[in-house]
């Protein structure tokens, strides 16, 4: 968090506290936890010696997550005009009733 002391004992900052407060995290494995849906982070207990966990504004976390999807979508369009969806083919194969 970007803050400094103004000499009067009060921290001065330009980011609002609520922007730096993600949803209450939930442990998903012994090494990872999640806050926003589809956003995972390393369990902070494992980032205490060599690499310290950074505090991110919520909007930045979500921006990074969303831009990742933008990037992957762009890569699909770059390599082919359309993506055939596997679940559609799987449904057709299952409807065949085990025919090989």
């Amino acid at each position, binding site marked *: 968090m970007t803050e400094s002391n103004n000499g009067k004992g009060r921290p001065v900052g330009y980011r609002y506290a609520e922007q730096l407060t993600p949803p209450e995290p939930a442990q*998903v*494995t012994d*090494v*990872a936890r999640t806050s926003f849906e*589809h*956003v*995972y982070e*390393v369990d902070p207990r*494992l*980032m*205490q*010696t*060599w*690499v310290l966990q950074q505090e991110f504004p919520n909007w930045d976390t979500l921006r990074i997550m969303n831009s990742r*999807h933008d*990037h*992957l*979508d762009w*890569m*699909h369009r*770059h*390599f*082919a*005009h*359309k*993506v*055939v*969806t*596997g*679940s559609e*083919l*799987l449904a*057709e*194969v299952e409807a065949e009733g085990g*025919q*090989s």
Partner: protein
Amino acid sequence: MTLQAERVDEVVSALRGVLRDEQILTSKPDRLNRARVPAPFPVHRWTERMPDLAVLPTSTEEVAAVVRIANDLRVPIVPRDGGTGLTDGAVPLRGGIVVDVKRMNAIRELDLENRTVTVGTGINMLKLNEQLARHDLFYPDDPASYPCSLVGGRIGTSGWSLIGSRYGHTRDLVLSFDFVLPTGEVMHVGDGIGHKISKSSSGYQLKHLFMGHQGTLGIATEATLKLFPKPEAELSPFWAFDNYDDAYACVGALARAGVATFAGAVLFDEHKVAYLRRDDEAYIPQPGDVRALVCTVMYGYEDEVRPAGKRLFRIAREHGARYLGDEISEGDWAARHDRYATPLHGRTKAGQVVPMSWHCEDAAINYTHLPAVTKAWHEIVADLRRRTDVFDDWGMFAYTSGNTGVDYLTEIDVGIWEQQLDDRAWEMWVKAKRDIAAVAISHNGSISACHGSCRDGEVDLVPDELGRGFDVMLDVKRALDPNNIMNPGKYLLDRAYDTGRQA
């Protein structure tokens, strides 16, 4: 830096006769930026690999003039394209001149009738395909460094493509190229003398000789490439297995199926899945019985891909596969085109996160040897990890190299804590690389399917792998580079010269 200051002045003075001042770079940042490669190396030894200067030529004629100067003055010269290779081809081991080809990135000719494009070798495949897409065409050379590697580097390393099982690899896709020999002579090399011939039986087949030499035989400057229609449809299903053996059987069956639109299949072993479940957001939520993965990818017209895809889905089902879902299948495949932009970390044995660089050792392995090689390689890396936290086993992939399933690009990914890579750890790593290469050879494989084999460790075994062929390499090197100026110190080629070290 290896040249005395007066020698650098002499070289710069000579270069000013053939290049503009702004094409000659001597500052430390300019030289440092052209010494870096992705393969980890001890930080305290980075200065050993600095060039004395770099040049930015814009034409074949300028490259030839620079090489002639280097040859006349007996100064080492090292070609550099994207600098993304994993076997240090672009690293100057003895200083000298780095030839950075990035300004030779123009599209010279697009031949829509014969379906070829002629480009400067400094062009990147992603940028090329952006231009080709306007004509609904596609150049399908697709390394994991797709957004940042260059056509010239693909020639110098004889690169491997993720979708090579469908379209071929760099050696199949490059029809011909202009090439500056170590004496500064310019040669056109391809099938026969034609620029756009895909099959000739005239004379020796020289094209392969001048690909994959890691810059030791000269510099490719302009290339003519084979083009395909931009695919209408892509399909990339990922399947999960609760054990490696079923996944291994499945990937073999998929590759042997003979589906025309098949562009590749990949096997993820248990160590790879464990690594992904630890740190990859797509895999963290997967249930614990997901222990091995297989993916396959197809490109073509939709009315080809759909029925072929159903055939592969049936094969996967017969092998006990569980479909992982559309989001992970499509997202993971799209991310495979770009593996160089990923910030990485590993773990100490106590579980603490540490910053690590990615390194990957590869080999070409027949399908029937994959399980034994996989086991032996993990034992080598496990031994490293027992002794130090510098190394972390990030698991293995096996990618089909062709459309019949005969052999696989087999790789083990190793996280390396580069800041802690001291001389002792480096020695351990070099020995491990040698052991990894030895396993590949002992299973009738090749030390590398993709990267090349001229880095410390594996290079020691190249004469063993090639036998009499290595002596032919020495003869060729001596004949074409009489003064050992072209990327000296690589591939044990100093043995071609009586004094062992000329430049």
